[in-house]
């Protein structure tokens, strides 16, 4: 149901921009999440015309689903149609209730749009002329898909079940704002003790925030898979030590990324892929089927596509290329021939690496001792115990820090890198794009082999011209 999405919402937010230093705009994981939700959230909103369900002072008020389910649905001219059975909502960051499901007196089920909804009081009033609607893509049933479902946290631990659902009207539209997970939600559902206790319970419930989960804590995308999953990701990630973070992200994200890509259409997915760094791209493409890989590659920037292709086994690479449409194929083949001129002979070893836990003092000391003979010096690279490149920072950034500050606190983890097999033109393009003075060349185990200086490579290209 997620396959098709409007393409007029091409993201402006995440288009690649030229960035200073080695920074990518956002952590790509957040990027993907934000991206998907951006698409979902921007679905057309249907205005709910006269939902006059506000209190005396016109404030928006919260209603619980258990309070309105089973209420009689009548038309303006007081003809009883049936009882409210379910809601249908759009799966998004701010889920809009789009349709209501009514169980007719004859026992049949009818779905009508909330466009016809007028009032929710002791009765639910709708316009007298209404049309039946159907479940559309991106829509789920409240009772069937949300109520009573298991809530799990990001690690898959069971928390509790959805005892009730809270709704709120805003600008005449009805939204789901959260789920009740407490005992009072349960009592409300059971309708124990009549109205008195019920009112007290509700009063209390507004105070007891711990029993209430805001919709902001729930991952809408997981709902489609029948799970109510929380997104307690920030606090989870904060607990991880920074030098492990890159590794952690890589491991979880290739899987997560693939999950996300599955539900996006090709063009959008390709856009997301092109925003990832090369390691993830390669990991992704290794797992893709050839047809799929070809499809995605034709959407990706050609010089990035070449980088990815060069890292795939020769056989797979050729198969993929043969599947790409002729126009793009031509460009790619041209770029690939350039890779006969690799950059190997341009590499210098005038670079400095430090450990994530080294302090600023220590780094400055190292700079003094070890960089005397360097021809130029702009960035300091950070490697972990396995000698894998995990971060980078500039001399300027170093000087801005306090002496005791450890490196992992200020280094950038998204490093722009290149490979030995990359053609010179592509490396140069990359350096221009990110305005880098030097770029590290790494092998497939993420060990630094050397760096390339902008001056050296530029000279070479100019010479040719």
């Amino acid at each position, binding site marked *: 149901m997620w396959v098709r999405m409007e393409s007029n919402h091409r993201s402006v937010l995440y288009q690649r921009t030229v960035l200073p230093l080695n920074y990518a705009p956002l952590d790509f994981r957040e990027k993907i999440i934000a991206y998907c939700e951006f698409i979902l959230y921007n679905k057309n909103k249907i205005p709910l015309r006269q939902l006059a369900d506000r209190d005396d002072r016109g404030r928006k008020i919260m209603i619980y689903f258990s309070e309105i389910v089973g209420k009689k649905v009548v038309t303006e001219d007081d003809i009883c149609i049936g009882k409210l059975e379910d809601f249908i909502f759009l799966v998004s960051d701010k889920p809009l209730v789009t349709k209501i499901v009514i169980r007719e007196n004859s026992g049949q089920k009818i779905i009508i749009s909330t466009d016809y909804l007028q009032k929710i009081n002791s009765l639910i009033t709708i316009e007298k002329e209404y049309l039946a609607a159907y479940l559309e893509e991106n829509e789920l049933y409240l009772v069937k898909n949300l*109520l*009573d*479902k*298991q*809530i799990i946290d990001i690690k898959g*631990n*069971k*928390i*509790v*079940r959805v*005892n009730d659902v809270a709704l709120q009207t805003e600008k005449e539209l009805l939204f789901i704002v959260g789920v009740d997970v407490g005992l009072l939600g*349960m009592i409300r*559902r*059971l309708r124990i003790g009549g109205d008195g206790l019920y009112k007290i319970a509700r009063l209390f419930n507004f105070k007891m925030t711990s029993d209430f989960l805001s919709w902001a804590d729930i991952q809408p995308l997981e709902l489609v898979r029948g799970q109510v999953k929380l997104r307690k990701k920030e606090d989870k990630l904060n607990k991880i030590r920074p030098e492990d973070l890159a590794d952690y992200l890589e491991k979880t994200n290739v899987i997560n990324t693939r999950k996300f890509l599955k539900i996006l259409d090709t063009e959008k997915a390709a856009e997301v892929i092109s925003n990832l760094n090369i390691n993830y791209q390669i990991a992704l493409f290794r797992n893709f089927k050839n047809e799929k890989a070809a499809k995605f590659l034709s959407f990706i920037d050609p010089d990035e596509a070449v980088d990815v292709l060069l890292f795939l086994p020769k056989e797979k690479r050729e198969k993929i290329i043969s599947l790409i449409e002729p126009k793009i194929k031509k460009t790619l083949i041209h770029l690939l021939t350039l890779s006969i001129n690799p950059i190997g002979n341009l590499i210098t070893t005038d670079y400095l690496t430090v450990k994530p836990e080294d302090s600023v003092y220590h780094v400055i000391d190292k700079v003094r001792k070890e960089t005397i003979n360097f021809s130029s010096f702009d960035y300091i690279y950070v490697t972990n115990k396995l000698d894998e490149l995990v971060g980078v920072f500039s001399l300027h950034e170093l000087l801005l820090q306090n002496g005791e500050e450890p490196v992992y606190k200020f280094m950038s983890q998204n490093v722009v890198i290149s490979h030995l097999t990359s053609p010179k033109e592509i490396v140069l393009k990359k350096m221009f794009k990110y305005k880098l003075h030097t770029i590290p060349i790494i092998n497939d185990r993420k060990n630094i082999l050397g760096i390339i200086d902008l001056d050296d490579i530029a000279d070479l290209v100019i010479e040719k011209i």
Partner: protein
Amino acid sequence: MRIFFNSFKKQLIIFLAVIGPGLITAIADNDAGGVATYTVAAATYGMASKFLFIPETLLLALTQEIGARIAIVTRKGLGDLIRERYGIKLSLFIFILYFITNQGVVLQNVSGLKSSLQLFNLPWQFFLIIFCALLIFIVIKFNYRKLQNIFLFMILFYLAYIISAWLAHPNWKEAIQESIIWPKKVDIRNVGFWFSRIAVLGTTITAWGQFFVHSYILDKKLTIDHLKAEKVEVYLGAIVTSIFSWMMAVAVTYTIFANKIHVVDGYSAALAMKPLAGQLSTILFSVGLFGASILGLTIVPLATAYVFSELFGYEGSLDANFKKGRLFYGFFILQITLGLIITLFPQTSLFKLTLYADYLNGVMLPIIFFFLIKFSEDEEIMGKYISRGFTSFFVRLSGIIITIAVIITFVGKVFKF
């Protein structure tokens, strides 16, 4: 030949990997309450108390198999499915009924443990508290694997019944004639006989057993590849259980029934055996009762805790630590403690209380059968693994028979036939 051997080896490994849930659940059905019911029934009606025991075994096997299948296919417990399909009201109602029923069964097991301690002439108050505390400690501290090994070890205690059956010098031919072919020694038109027969069925096929096999398989984290092996394991469990209970009946029939002695529970039965089959028989019977009580006392509260976690969505796994699964372990501790306190007050009539538990179990059974049939035949839930053919027919038929039996028993008890 070698290929055959290798494939056999592979299948054996898969089988050993799944062993546990079916065997443990089925055998725990012969808990202290079961022992008491079988004993009283066999003491009154002899081997005829096991009449129709082959269809009974089949029913146990099939219901457990359905539970196992639903658990493996859906990765959800019976509680999960009830809550998600039928909402919170029914869930709460079922849980309250289920909690009370299980509390009654726990009580039967605590008093069974008490009886076995008395038979060994131990100060039962002291040891009862010690055993209960130890049980709670072990269940909280040990993970799934270790606990399962303990459960499997406890099954060895049931071997005592086989030896004690052999010691009773039974007439095997007659035993088979009475229980499998047609009972000659009992007038089959006797209404009391059928009440007793239904009571025996009710302790073999239990509400908690149905929930437990479900949850326990889920906690073992078996996958669809294990489905076939698990089926075999469940059937094996049902057969082994039936053999044990049949042996129990043999041991009682050829001592107590043959000498027309009146007994009311496992304790008096064990004592009555002493002059008839010797000291060893009594000891073996007591050992069996001890094992049955301990097993029941662990499994039944766990069954309650599992269902609570499923219905209300809390973490419920033997692999969870105490902090994470505190509500799960909380219900386990609560049931044992309640059972212990009630037993420690000597003035409470345990006999009556346990009888009510049996009635409640009877009420639960038609409900459970309804859910089992409903879920296992729903294609949306089970996909291609839905029940069909004989299983479907037999379970439906049994569901109807059990429902009628339960109603008749109720009417019978109310109007005192």
